[in-house]
């Protein structure tokens, strides 16, 4: 293994979860990198959907925004945004949704709305975007989020999107159609819900991370799964492909833009 950053490792670990030809609803940032890495390595048949309405995109560089022209130019088709949300996401046609957030709780519920009270927030965050319905309808949700006691919290300030609600089957009983958060990929490894309690447990660690590090970064008493796996270090192929993608991306975004005068 080459030396790699935790962001790279998170991205590669997430990419490995994408096997076969899943239909993925992709967000900007680490999820976009992970999905495109999977496409460029072991999952060429993966279908990437961005909420801007681009379906089956194969961007050569990572988009900076959810609506970069690169996404439209390389798409199998582009549809209006209402159609992506109703005819694709709500219709149950998305296998895997990726979400990030400012806060996550032990049942995988997410906050991306406010820190502090809604009506007098300490920090106003961007808000829900596509998250509530991705969380509801995707067959599986993967969350990518760097861990700290400010982000992995005992109690959310605001619940923007539903994980397992209060656990113990409350999500399923609420009538949610999708499967909920099956994995949380973070910078020490991965959490996954316990079968019965649906509380997020530590299920896998990066080779150089420890249970103590994980516990220190999580704001609730973190349980460790009976079988704790070690996530294999990135292969040279994975790391080279990801870094080449990132280099192409930086070069493309550094090109000066002509002011349309």
């Amino acid at each position, binding site marked *: 293994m080459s030396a790699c950053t935790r962001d790279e490792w998170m991205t590669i670990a997430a990419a490995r979860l994408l096997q076969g030809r899943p239909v993925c609803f992709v967000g*900007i*940032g680490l999820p976009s990198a992970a999905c495109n890495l999977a496409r460029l390595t072991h999952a060429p048949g993966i279908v990437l959907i961005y*909420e*801007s*309405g*681009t379906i089956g995109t194969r961007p050569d560089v990572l*988009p*900076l*925004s*959810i*609506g*970069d*022209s690169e*996404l*439209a130019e390389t798409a199998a*088709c*582009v*549809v*209006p*945004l*209402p159609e992506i*949300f*109703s005819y694709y*996401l*709500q219709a149950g046609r998305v296998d895997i949704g990726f979400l990030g957030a400012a806060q996550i709780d032990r049942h995988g519920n997410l906050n991306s*709305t406010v820190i502090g009270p*809604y*009506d007098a*927030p*300490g*920090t*106003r*965050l*961007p*808000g*829900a*975007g*596509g*998250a*509530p*319905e991705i*969380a*509801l309808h995707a067959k599986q949700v993967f969350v990518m989020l760097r861990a700290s006691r400010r982000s992995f919290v005992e109690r959310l300030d*605001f*619940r*923007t*999107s*539903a994980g397992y*609600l209060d656990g113990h089957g409350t*999500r399923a009983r*609420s*009538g*949610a159609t999708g499967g909920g958060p099956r994995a949380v990929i973070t910078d020490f490894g991965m959490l996954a819900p316990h079968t019965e309690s649906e509380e997020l447990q530590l299920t896998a660690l990066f080779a150089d991370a420890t249970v103590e590090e994980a516990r220190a970064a999580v704001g609730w008493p973190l349980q460790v799964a009976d079988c704790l796996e070690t996530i294999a270090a990135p292969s040279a192929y994975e790391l080279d492909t990801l870094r080449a993608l990132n280099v192409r991306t930086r070069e493309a*975004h550094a090109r*000066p*833009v*002509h*002011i*349309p*005068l």
Partner: protein
Amino acid sequence: MTLSLAEAIEQFVSDGASVALEGFTHLIPFAAGHEIIRQRRRDLHLIRMTPDLIYDQMIGMGCARKLTFSWGGNPGVGSLHRLRDAVENQWPNPLQLDEHSHAGMAAAFCAGAARLPFGVLRGYAGTDLPAHNPNIRHVACPFTGELLAAVPAINPDVTILHAQRADRAGNVAIHGIVGAAREAALAAKTLIVTVEEIVDELPPAMNAIVLPHWIISAVVPCRGGAYPSYAHGHYARDNAFYQQWDAIARERASFLAWMDEHVLGAKDHGAFLAGLQREAA
């Protein structure tokens, strides 16, 4: 009807109006937003799925009393500091929020376009949004009894879009990422479209949408009208500007100075672009 941008804003956007400048990342009508700022409109109810920099500017310049939205950030960069300052500190004035998810707001635009009073979706379940927004309610299916989320239709007084082309009859074509542009256009009482160019015939394009001339109140020729957003096939998104905006807008003083110089100090969008070009040179 072809008008200048100043004429179109003067004639159709009045103080207190509900106004939707749509375009999802792509084709954001920056020129029109700047003209609204120049004409010092007040008490607007701004509507937009993703407020973006143009609404950050309009909010910071005191044009808005209310915002209907579903994601208020600087895409790929971070916060909209002027939006945050308005919500967190009521500066320059309080801003009422009507906050949705993308799916909810899309349903509301669709209902508006269809002139139905409400839109239906399977959404908002398990979230705190309905507790803070009386515009998110429920409706029971008359066949299955299932409870679904409902949102009131959005029917802006004015929708403003930027598009690549109009033909001489005034039909408008958009291709590339279209977002909720069509629904916002058809939901509006008045529709203004700024366009990159006016052509004899609209060329065929993949995934294009066409808006017929008779639903449009004004077509405004406005080259570069989406910059620093982009016009697919005409010019690229200026990602660097989106990143620079973070520093410009972080403090009230630097924001006001920039707006004063670049927007209020420019007589129109051409002058605005020329100013940026001089600065870059």
